[in-house]
């Protein structure tokens, strides 16, 4: 198999959401002494980009999106430590803290965004659901994250997204973090109204918005 054929297989494993194949191909690349940066950029990234495109074309739905993201994560779990060891560089991408705001226990959308962000190369700290607003700030400081993502499914809990931005201002931390809001009742208009840095209507859009905010787009 040529290198390009292997890269094609890696991409296909991601598009097919095949966790086992994605991981096995990554392990093979490590064993064979491949340039792992090239493996990521030419093998796996085109796969997850294709998944995003298929989603936007209406071909892929949530199950494809999430299983493909999981496949990407399983490959990166093999590649990232090796990359760090070999290259002696910390290849961790931009860091993100994500969670569903306090009072709200809905996590399907939040999990999807977290997975897609990870698959998109972000280092994600997922705080789970019903997260106290202060927790977001503490976790972001601890992880050295520059981006905080707030999810809310309910109109009643969505107001906590506004409260969070007020909290950042009170603490004088507003300029330190970029804030992305999402969830069923959220909208671009809402994000503007509360002074958030961005809004995403779905997980694919969230990755794009996060990359733009992190200066990676």
């Amino acid at each position, binding site marked *: 198999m040529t290198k390009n054929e292997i890269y094609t297989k890696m991409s296909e494993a991601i598009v097919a*959401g095949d966790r086992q194949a994605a991981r096995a191909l990554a392990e093979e690349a490590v064993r064979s002494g491949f340039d792992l940066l090239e493996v990521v950029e030419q093998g796996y990234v085109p796969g997850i980009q294709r998944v995003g495109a298929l989603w936007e074309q209406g071909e892929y739905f*949530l*199950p494809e999106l*999430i*299983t493909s993201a999981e496949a990407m994560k399983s490959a990166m779990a093999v590649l990232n430590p090796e990359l760090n060891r070999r290259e002696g560089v910390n290849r961790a991408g931009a860091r993100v803290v994500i969670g569903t705001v306090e009072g709200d226990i809905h996590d*399907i959308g939040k999990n999807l965004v977290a997975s897609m962000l990870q698959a998109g190369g972000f280092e994600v700290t997922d705080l789970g659901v019903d997260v106290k607003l202060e927790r977001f700030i503490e976790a972001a400081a601890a992880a050295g994250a520059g981006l905080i993502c707030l999810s809310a499914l309910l109109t009643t809990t969505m107001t906590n997204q506004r409260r969070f931005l007020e909290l950042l201002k009170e603490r004088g931390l507003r300029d330190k973090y970029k804030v992305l809001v999402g969830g*069923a*009742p959220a909208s671009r208009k809402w994000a503007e109204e509360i002074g958030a840095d961005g809004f995403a209507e779905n997980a694919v859009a969230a990755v794009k918005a996060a990359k733009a905010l992190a200066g990676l787009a």
Partner: protein
Amino acid sequence: MFEAKRPKLELLEKAFVERIVDEGLTLLENPGVLVENPEALRLLAEGGAAVDAGSQRARIGRGLVEKCLASTPSSVTLYDRRGEKAFVIGGDEVHFDPGSAAVNLLDHATQTERKASTADVVEFIKLVETLDHFHFQSTGLVPSDVPAGASDAVRLYLGLVLSEKPFITGTFRVEGFWAMKDLLAAVRGGEEALRRKPLAVFDACPSPPLKWSHLTAQSLMDAARAGLPSELISVGMTGATSPVTLAGTLVQHVAENLAGLVICQLAGPGAPVIFGGSPSSFDMRKGTTPLGAMEGMMIDAGAAQIAKFLKLPAHAYMGLSDAKVNDPQAGFETALGAVIGALAGVNVISGAGMLDFESTQCLEKLVIDDGICAMVYRLLGGIAQRDEPIALGVFEGFSPGMSFLAHPHTRRWYRQEHILPGLADRDTYEAWVAAGRTSIVDKAHTDVRRRLAAYAAPPLADAVRRDLDGIMAAYGRGSGLDGLPKA
């Protein structure tokens, strides 16, 4: 592993079916049926019926009916224009097609009915070609801008040029059949080939109560001789042209359809016949003939059960509405009819796109109804066991925070187990508002335009096209039509 069970609806006890059929047979003996066609009367007399030429009444004995039932095939297979894809009309197969021969089109921009033009017929055929859940086309619109004498063949000509699906059609005058048969034979490359692989069904309605007109009896004989399927469409209107009781109308339904079947079999033994109907629940205040009434649908379901008892394919005019615009009534009457017809095992369900007592077609409604048919097919697919064990494997390694969304099992099965929502709105309220508060009718209109823009004519051999043009031109000249209708 458990297979999916085909869900079924049966409204009649078996003994009740037998009683209805028995009374229908008695009606055929006495008073018999009126047949306003001398040739059909002659065939009936030769076949052993007691015919009074003066009153045009034929009394048909049970022996003759039974003999004719025995020679009628229990299923019909239609083939698409290429002669490749086969559609079995029989058993519990269900095929939807648009309601036929509407004279009006509901115009989206004005939301009013207007006479249909040739250009509308072309759009109608193209649109139906793109809608997957309609297995058949129907000559669904009557163009008002061609001479009435040519309009039956014009519809079929345009359809055969623009579509590959089989057709449900019918004649408006006796001569129409010959042109239409020639058009069909031209596609197949001859009458024998057409007989082997029928491309169209000819609808013929008795005139209630208990009468076959000259035109419709002729259509039955002509189609039978060509080996083409006839769809017998009894159209009792409860309490007006048929008994007010549902079972009483079914008795008349049986007598009328079986008289038609006998004429078919005497003209062409073994000719395919579909036991169909378009009964309506006559409205006792307005004097109208609604097809969206529950009672009409119940008669249809009962008639399908009777067809199965007689080992005949079944048809019904269902899945349509009497509403004048695409309002909730249009949706619920259509959906109820489609579901009930499919559960009852009606093999050909005609009606999609129709409004206003079978008089009006609507492009937007066709798209919406295609989505209803998709849901109905899903229902017929039933609940199957996909895995062994059913779900225990999915719960292996189960943790409380687990979401099935990320489980490979979900990706493996969701597309087989669930259908896409089509035009149905499943946005959150906020997303719906953000998208402009669009109604399903607006979405349907956008979809109609998108589909028409994307339509590509399925390839047709030049020689066949020339033959179709030649036949149409010749028939058109005889009916006052100048030149060919523009496809």
